[in-house]
């Protein structure tokens, strides 16, 4: 049982997960933003590890990643910043990023560092399921690190069943056929959301991509255990800054 399991054990609905890019807007903002999000009442944090070529991301996350890399962010620097994470907060934290920087850091060392700093799970969108099973699964299970898998409106029922068996913690439901930060109308996805609801998966589900305000958050929550906000939060940080007040203000916009 890690902090993700505990969260979904005690809370079944309206879970708010926030994604932001580590090292943005400034290199040393990472841990402060985590503390402010925790204080504001956010349930879960997805910490993005920036990559030069983020295939699944829209302009907002791309640009924040590019800035973070320029600021000096890397997997190594991030673990340095996180070394005292658990002295100040118990909020579940997931690292999210592409496989290449992790390969260069060293996969086993990466898993060790996650566990050592108190990271609860990972989302690595471009890591294929067979690759995870061969290279990661055993170690992740042993160390209690959750691997969270994604599904999309085009994922077939049989593959969703396979993903449900292999995902740990929750399933990340991508709201539409899109990259992050897109505003494809969520109401068009009713059929997809209802289809997944009826499948009675063993994992809880969070909906992400395109969630940006109270209305889209509430809508997503009506079909799932909660929702994930990324690009809209990064936009907010760019405009309003990283202070406790600014982050509290953002939280109140989503959950008045």
């Amino acid at each position, binding site marked *: 049982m890690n902090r993700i399991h505990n969260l979904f054990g005690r809370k079944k609905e309206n879970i708010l997960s926030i994604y932001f890019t580590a090292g943005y807007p400034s290199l040393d903002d990472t841990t402060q933003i985590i503390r402010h999000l925790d204080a504001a009442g956010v349930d879960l944090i997805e910490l993005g590890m920036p*990559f*030069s*070529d983020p*295939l*699944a991301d*829209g*302009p907002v996350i*791309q640009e924040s990643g*590019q800035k973070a*890399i320029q600021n000096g962010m*890397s*997997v*190594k620097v991030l673990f340095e910043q996180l070394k005292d994470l658990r002295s100040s907060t118990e909020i579940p934290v997931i690292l999210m990023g*592409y*496989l*290449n*920087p*992790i*390969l*260069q*850091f060293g996969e086993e060392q990466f898993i060790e560092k996650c566990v050592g700093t108190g990271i609860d799970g990972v989302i690595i*969108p*471009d*890591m*294929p399921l*067979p*690759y995870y099973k061969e290279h990661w699964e055993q170690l992740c299970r042993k160390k209690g690190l959750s691997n969270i*898998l*994604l*599904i*999309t409106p*085009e*994922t*077939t029922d049989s*593959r969703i069943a396979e993903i449900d068996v292999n995902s740990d913690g929750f399933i990340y439901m*991508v709201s539409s*056929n*899109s*990259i992050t930060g*897109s505003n494809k109308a969520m109401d068009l996805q009713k059929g997809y959301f209802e289809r997944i609801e009826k499948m009675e998966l063993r994992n809880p589900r969070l909906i992400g991509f395109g969630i940006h305000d109270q209305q889209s958050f509430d809508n997503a929550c009506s079909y799932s255990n909660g929702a994930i906000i990324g690009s809209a939060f990064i936009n907010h940080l760019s405009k309003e800054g990283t202070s406790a007040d600014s982050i509290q203000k953002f939280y109140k916009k989503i959950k008045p």
Partner: protein
Amino acid sequence: MQSFNPTEAGFYGEFGGAFVPEMLFPNVDELQREYRSIIHSDSFQEEFRALLKDYVGRPTPLFYSANLSSEFNAQIYLKREDLNHTGAHKINNTVGQILLAKRLNKKHIIAETGAGQHGVATATACALMGIGCTIFMGEVDIERQMPNVERMKLLGAKVVPATSGSRTLKDATNEAIREWINNPVDTHYIIGSVVGPHPYPDMVSKFQSVISEEIKAQLKEKTGSSEPDYILACLGGGSNAIGAFYHFIDNGKTKLIAVEAGGEGVHSGRTAATIALGRKGIIHGSKTYLIQTDDGQITEPHSISAGLDYPGIGPVHAYLHDTGRAQVVSVTDAEALDAAFQLSRKDGIIPALESAHALAYLPKMKLRKDDVVVVNLSGRGDKDMMTYKKHFEL
């Protein structure tokens, strides 16, 4: 056409595979399931071969260059891919993929392009088949390859500038992949090189393998032997190189030499020589060698040639390099320019800057009089006239 294959999951040794996010899984999975049976079917082969012959203009000649042979003291042949319709080898692949897209009932085509040759070849095939297409091209490349941008537009393609990152081929590829994520059902992505997730490297290799198929037959006719001593090809992503190598990979005799873009020098910090500097990693859904920082950020490459300005190489080339089957070397921007000038003046052929890299390796080889050398002249130089004009002060 079936002699050299990756594993079922698309691996050449440890290289290749399909490292794609779930958003791309259905698209890639559909291609993986369908491509072999479609492209090996009789009806497909019949239509493909007929178009290569009557539309593309194949077979392309194998030209014995008496002038280069005397200059470099060997028997030098040029495989004239520059004489293909649209001026490069790229159309071999786009004709194949458009026929595949039709059989998969796709309604729209997207593609990335560097030098613009693949973009033009895609726009051409789409015009022929009456399918709409969108071409992603780096802002920097749009500037330096303007004639090709204008050709694509005339052919009816929409050209979208890639404004992220280094604004060259790598970023155009990122943008095309993102477009594919946004339109997963009715859109086919025609990748122009042997890069990307499985099955692209294998599929593009097979469409381009017609080059070496022809070289074999033509050499046999001209020299009595179908096996040359050397084959030279430039290497960016590696589609012309694999096309020229394909049917020689299993023979023990022919030395395969791939020439990368050294840019301003391999250690200048401004280079696209992937094998010289790269480490193993993942780029555009495939495990291969790529130029990257210690932290795993993909580096912005440099080459005077837009078509070689790519920080990775196809996984098949990573494999051929690691197993020692192919030798990967590099030449600089300046050496490529000299070679382009020389071929223009000696043989009356203006080569593409990409192809000039292969020619530029000739002076560095230790050749014997009776060595048979085939240089794959992958494209013509019309698109590079602005660069040539500047450097040769015409």
